């Protein structure tokens, strides 16, 4: 066999492997979704979405939980995304490449590996006790923001780094300041990549229960939060709670709640995916 044939074979083999891997991913996803749908879909009805928690599985609903999840996600997005992107931009474009900066760089990635519960403990002390926010939505959102910031910062930096030097050169040479270059050229060109970070950050935040429990999110909340200082519960807490109940009916409830949770993620991710596709199509060099 000649080298060319070998290479061709490898190429084909990889293609097959690529299809295989992609389909593994998709098949697993399908298994999850189908499994959850089969188990939980029948349970979803208007009552389920609009009822309060209850000891009776058939009457229990997730009104306060999904409302809390939405609150938390929106607030977290509002806090974490601008902050994370700004920090990423600052670190990549502005900060001097000193030893300290290098050290910081390594450690921000490091923070992504700190277990979420530690963020919970930190959040409880910082936001709950010191800032006096207690177990409020705001405290929860701030805590989750801390949790996802490293992901956003690090992905932002990478996306920015990937913008070719020549684009920056062109902008600088036209008299653009650093900020203008960043804002008009670098950010638009890297926005697709940044959005991937945002998607992954959201995906992470949406499923967290432990840190929120620690900062004081509750399991039984019989009223819908109306302001960021209200107490709250979130879907993951409800889900964890239900999965650890002995009655099988609660497991069905959990599956149904998971469907709703995924739906919320879908919608939020969907917005980001839509934007990403738009941006990435525009930018091709």
């Amino acid at each position, binding site marked *: 066999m000649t080298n060319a044939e070998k290479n061709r074979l490898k190429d084909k083999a990889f293609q097959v492997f690529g299809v295989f891997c992609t389909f593994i991913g998709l098949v697993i996803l399908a298994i999850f979704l189908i499994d959850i749908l089969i188990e939980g879909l029948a349970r979803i009805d208007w009552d389920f979405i609009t009822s309060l928690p209850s000891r009776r599985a058939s009457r229990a609903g997730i009104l306060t939980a999904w409302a809390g999840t939405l609150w938390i996600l929106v607030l977290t997005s509002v806090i974490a995304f601008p902050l994370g992107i700004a920090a990423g931009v600052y670190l990549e474009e502005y900060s001097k490449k000193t030893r300290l900066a290098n050290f910081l760089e390594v450690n921000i990635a490091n923070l992504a590996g700190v277990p979420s519960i530690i963020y919970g403990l930190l959040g409880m002390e910082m936001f709950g006790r010191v800032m006096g926010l207690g177990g409020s939505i705001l405290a929860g959102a701030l805590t989750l923001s801390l949790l996802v910031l490293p992901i956003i910062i690090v992905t932002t930096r990478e996306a920015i780094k990937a913008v070719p030097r*020549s*684009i920056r050169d062109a902008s600088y040479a036209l008299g653009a300041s650093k900020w203008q270059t960043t804002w008009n050229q670098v950010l638009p060109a890297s926005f697709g990549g940044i959005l991937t970070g945002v998607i992954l950050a959201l995906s992470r935040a949406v499923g967290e229960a432990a840190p929120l429990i620690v900062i004081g999110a509750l399991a039984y909340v019989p009223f819908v939060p109306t302001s960021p200082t209200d107490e709250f519960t979130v879907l993951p807490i409800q889900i964890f709670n239900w999965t650890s109940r002995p009655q099988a009916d609660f497991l069905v409830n959990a599956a149904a709640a998971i469907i709703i949770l995924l739906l919320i993620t879908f919608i939020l991710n969907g917005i980001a995916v839509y934007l990403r596709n738009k941006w990435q199509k525009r930018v091709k060099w």
Partner: protein
Amino acid sequence: MSKKNYKLEAKDLNAYYGSFHALKNINIAMEEKAVTAFIGPSGCGKSTFLRTLNRMNDYIEGFRVEGDILLDGRDIYAKDVRVDELRKEVGMVFQKPNPFPKTIFENVVYGLKIQGLKDKRVLAETAEKSLRQTALWDEVKDKLDKSALALSGGQQQRLCIARALAISPSVILMDEPTSALDPISTAKIEELIFKLKNDYTIVIVTHNMQQAGRVSDYTAFFYMGELVEFAKTRTMFTSPKHERTQNYITGRFG
């Protein structure tokens, strides 16, 4: 000679890429409202010197300059110089065309927009004017809202020139602005340079001796990082002082 007439001066300029000594003790003074051409074999340091004149090399890791570069008598490497202001004064066209991944129109008006100009009419007018100056208007007028990356090599090059002209700098640095252009477009750009000379100071890098002869008032010949000879173009092309210059110009070299 009185200093007054010099727009740009380099004094004892040395430049290094890390340990590589790219520019060696350059002393040159370029006249206002004149065209200076840089010539010399590939890799001799022309682009490096050109980029040093508006501090575009600041962003290259390990790059270092010693000595002074004066624009209107002021050191552009001084602490208090704002590089963005400097670059509005000293425009640049790069050796490799580098359009933004935006529309053609956005490319041309970019410089104006960042200066805060918003008036749509003025933007459109300037865009048209710059594109006409670079003989690109007819080719792109129907696709101003298409991506600049979908242009041919020569079109991109002219677009980059148009983009630099749009902000009306007082000095324009051009690194082989016609390398990808056909003779007619080249002629148009040369004409343009000739016209621009009335208002602007122009520095151009070129490999085309005829071009240097046609458009420039002064010529600087670089060789291996050194400025071998700098003189009136006519003088240099007819009676160069150095043998090296002579050999290079007549193509008897290497």
